[in-house]
């Protein structure tokens, strides 16, 4: 019994201690719904404004799929992503991600950002990426169960 109380305190206390490492959860409903249909809605802090602008201008061929949106929704989402991009948001993790990108690069994949690559090098067995439960590097939630709400420092 006492063990459980201590565990609960430890678990409950952790988020506050690590609050710095957490990415702010997405608060825009259109982003949650429209950008969360085919994969989890990725936090905009992982990429710079220039990347989001490029992505939102090319939704009809989005990584080999048509993800196009009605114009009003597209504009609303683009505005939210750009306002919360890693180069303008106050998120520490976001700043680190964007700083690792060369100034003349506008990556479309978070999984190609040098900091993402560095954080996963040696941490994940090569075979884990092709595990049927994972399927894709972009399937963050397969490994980070709190990814949807901004937690990546969980395992």
């Amino acid at each position, binding site marked *: 019994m006492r063990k459980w109380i201590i565990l609960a305190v430890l678990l409950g206390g952790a988020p506050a201690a690590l609050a710095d490492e957490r990415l702010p959860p997405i608060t825009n409903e259109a982003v949650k719904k429209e950008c969360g249909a*085919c*994969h989890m809605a990725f936090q905009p802090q992982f990429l710079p404004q220039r990347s989001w602008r490029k992505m939102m201008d090319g939704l009809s061929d989005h990584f*080999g*799929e048509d993800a196009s949106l009605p114009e009003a929704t597209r504009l609303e989402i683009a505005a939210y992503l750009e306002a919360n991009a890693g180069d303008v948001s106050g998120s520490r993790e976001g700043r680190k991600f964007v700083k690792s990108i060369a100034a003349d690069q506008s990556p479309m994949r978070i999984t190609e950002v040098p900091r993402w690559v560095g954080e996963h090098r040696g941490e994940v067995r090569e075979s884990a990426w092709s595990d049927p439960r994972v*399927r*894709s590097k*972009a399937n963050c939630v*397969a490994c980070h169960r709190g990814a949807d709400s901004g937690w990546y420092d969980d395992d």
Partner: protein
Amino acid sequence: MTKTFLAAFAVCVLLSAGLAAADTPRDAILTEFLSQAKSADPGFAGFSATRGETLFRGNHAGGKPDTPSCTTCHGAAPQDKGRTRAGKEIDPIAVSAAPKRFTDPAEVEKWFGRNCNSVLGRECSAVEKGDFITFMMGQ
């Protein structure tokens, strides 16, 4: 006695009204596709679940290379959950397994628009959309 009967009767009426209401949006969507199909071809005879199944299961050329078929994401068994290329689970596409399917006209149009373009490289016709929904209603 009469009171109990009346209460039971009221419950029945409410229940059936609820069921009817839940079906109306899908019927309205199908009716709209039917009128589009008829205005393109006045002799149009009605939607076909068999044609819908062929569209669903077929391997199509002309679309984007990573998505040759509707089953790429929706899976071969419409009653089972599907999975996107990025690994996210999606609800079954069969109406029996996911009763809310094809009840929101904007969602229906948005996804036919995207997925027909990804898989077929073109828009789906009203006939194809009606056939597809008709097939899924029987699944």
